[in-house]
């Protein structure tokens, strides 16, 4: 299964949790203590290894916080 690598632009995050509820693996979480430049608690990931790279979180994010990448599979 393809593995996703999430990158967050945390200073844009407003902590709305829309990505948290659409994640099928439930690995996204609002950060417990970190606060960003706008004063919101930004999003964080609890277990990156479980990410399947489905893109739902990025699709749902209104603020363009999330970018998703995957490892290149070498051609056989």
């Amino acid at each position: 299964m393809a593995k996703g690598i999430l990158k967050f632009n945390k200073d844009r995050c407003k902590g709305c949790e829309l990505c948290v509820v659409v994640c099928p693996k439930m690995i996204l979480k609002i950060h417990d203590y970190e606060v960003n430049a706008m004063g919101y608690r930004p999003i964080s990931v609890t277990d990156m290894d479980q990410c399947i790279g489905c893109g739902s979180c990025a699709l749902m994010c209104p603020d363009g916080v999330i970018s998703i990448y995957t490892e290149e599979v070498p051609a056989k």
Partner: protein
Amino acid sequence: MKKIFEYTKGMLPVSTHYCPGCTHGIAHRLVMEVLEERGLLGESIGVAPIGCSILSHNYMNVDMCESAHGRAPAVASGIRRAMPDKIVFTYQGDGDLASIGAGEIVHAAHRGEKFTTIFVNNAIYGMTGGQMAPTTLIGQKSTTGIEGRKKEISGMPLRVAEMLATIDGAVFVERVALNTPANIRKAKKAIDKAFAVQEKRLGFSFVEVLSTCPTNWGLNPVESLKWLGKNMIPYYPLGNLRSPEEVE
């Protein structure tokens, strides 16, 4: 590393002023993704309305023009006729398009003006503080209807997409929602078709986007999405109301 998703270059790298969880950000992104994928970012001129999206020209990386309240279709008609080779779109909310601008949008559609309108319907006036809009649902509380909208006083909510679908000049009319990832993908397809209609100069194209307003609905962002699915979609059914054969 291979890219799966990156924020579109059609959006400027700045934070928006929208409240947390406001789906305006998603609607902005979908429009800009479509324009980027079609290679039209340098060819497009947007018209911003009055409402929460009044500052959308600060976020959308295309040429934009501001218009008076409700008059975006009139401004877009002028731009479209003066520059027939450009792609012109208006991005309007329900307070702007469905109440004060109802005359402009009906006549722009009636004349078959060849631009695209993205109509963001969140069933309330957002910017001015949650007053009742023409699209506010029966029983929905607002600051000017604290006991909820009543049919005998304010009438039934206005279904703009159905109204415009009866006009011959509006060749593409579709209603979409932004409450789930599946609906967001469908919304992007609808916006893509609307711009395809304009690229082929077939006539007026219109996409109604059901959106949320967590602040003025008095709900948190996640509850707002559920409220949209439970209350708005039954009254404003999703789907295509009119589409020309050329873009199918």
